[in-house]
């Protein structure tokens, strides 16, 4: 059974800074606001308390958006569910194949051609070999890049690169999908086409965690929302209510 359980999770992110040994003192973090709620110092290392006492239980079918100001801990929460960051205290249980779409999109290798990029991603993410040719054809049709797919992605326009990266990202089939800051690509006409693909992509996943500032996006994709403020969960429930809470905070 696919699920995500976070029990009293705290995450402190260490900021490493070796100022002590340099002959010429470079601007260091020595005077950062340490000793406050959000940062402490321990053995010369500054810790940012990015998440505090987070409890979250997600079961199959849950579609949750994370709302909060910049630095509220949305991406950190996605990263701990993804297993990229370790938790400091508390307990975390995640069952299911995860895919995280953080930092905008899937990174393309700019010197490789479109086809080579497809092959690389297929290889890294274990796409089924027997369906590979079908998938490539599907991506060809969807991106409408034609013969450009045989050329290095370096020469693509930003929009073309985005189309390919988008197509590659939405080809994944995870149980748990983690998305940071929305998803989408290209010009107006392409946007309509891509929103259909996003819907399919999101529907295939059993659990969705989406960090976003867009009310419309959250409404269309999610059934619940978690509002974060300075690393703490301040509201969990209906999406519209969550946005009201969020609006009252600012």
């Amino acid at each position: 059974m696919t699920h995500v359980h976070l029990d009293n999770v705290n995450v402190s992110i260490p900021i490493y800074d070796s100022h002590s040994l340099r002959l010429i003192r470079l601007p260091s973090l020595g005077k950062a606001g340490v000793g406050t709620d959000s940062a402490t110092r321990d053995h010369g290392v500054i810790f940012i308390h990015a998440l505090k006492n987070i409890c979250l239980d997600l079961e199959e079918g849950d579609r949750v958006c994370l709302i909060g100001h910049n630095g509220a801990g949305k991406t950190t929460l996605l990263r701990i569910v993804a297993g990229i960051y370790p938790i400091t205290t508390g307990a975390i249980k995640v069952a299911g194949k995860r895919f995280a779409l953080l930092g905008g999109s899937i990174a393309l290798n700019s010197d490789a051609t479109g086809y080579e990029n497809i092959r690389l991603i297929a290889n890294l993410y274990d796409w089924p070999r027997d369906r590979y040719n079908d998938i490539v054809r599907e991506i060809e049709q969807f991106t409408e890049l034609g013969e450009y797919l045989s050329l290095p992605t370096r020469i693509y326009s930003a929009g073309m690169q985005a189309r390919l990266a988008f197509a590659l990202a939405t080809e994944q089939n995870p149980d748990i999908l983690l998305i940071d800051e929305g998803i989408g690509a290209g010009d107006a006409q392409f946007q309509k086409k891509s929103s259909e693909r996003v819907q399919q992509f999101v529907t295939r996943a059993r659990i969705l965690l989406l960090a976003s500032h867009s009310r419309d996006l959250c409404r269309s994709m999610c059934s619940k929302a978690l509002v974060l403020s300075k690393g703490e969960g301040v509201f969990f429930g209906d999406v519209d209510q969550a946005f009201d809470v969020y609006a009252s905070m600012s």
Partner: protein
Amino acid sequence: MSLRVRSSANNLWKSLSWAWLDTVCQYRRSRIGPLWETINVLVMLIGLTVVSSSVFGSSIFAIIGHAGIGIIVWSAIASLVFESPGTFVRNCGYVTNSMLSIDLYVGRAVFKTLITFSHHFVIFFVGVLFGLVPIGWVSLLAIPGIVLLFVNGFWVAMALGLICARFRDVEPFVRNIMQLAFFVTPVFWNYRQISVDRRYLVDGNPLFYFIEIIRKPLLGEVPPPSFYGAVLGVTVCGYALAYYVHRRMRRQLAFYL
């Protein structure tokens, strides 16, 4: 268990094809492509052989095989060590944003070096063609030597990759040591040329054994078993170190970058 073995084998395959793509892309816009790799080492090899032959007063033809293979193997060792500190730093975007196994970045670094090494190795066959180095059944003994060298590449890339991601002062230190090691190790000079009371400098140098188990067979000699013993010892200790470092640092890796 068998699942883990299968996934490791799968990761090896993935990182090999990734490294292959890296190499293809790197040379795509160059006319002679990876031949540059071969030429670079060839120039270095000829230059150092000439210098070495005049410094130590032997004929160029007498030492070109020894020095040449030494330099080819050394470039592999040096590039394994030089690439290692950046194993994860280079893949920062992947490490912090995706959930790919970190073994892939290790494999990517090691296989990149292996592919480059195979381009350098062409020079050996050129040497055979000109009758400068012998070839025979003993030459095949170089294969286990090469395998052992690259097997060690994995622990070096894992351990140094993690340590250098956390402690940024280690990389320049490692570069320093390797530069010194080039002169201290009998790469382009011969073990016999060092005075007896200083031989401990070579005997205690693990890199010497890594070179010899590849070089000796290619010059028609069988390496003494103790040389393999030394290399296997380093391999075991190295993997133990990498295991320890991995256990201590793996979870924190994304914080280091």
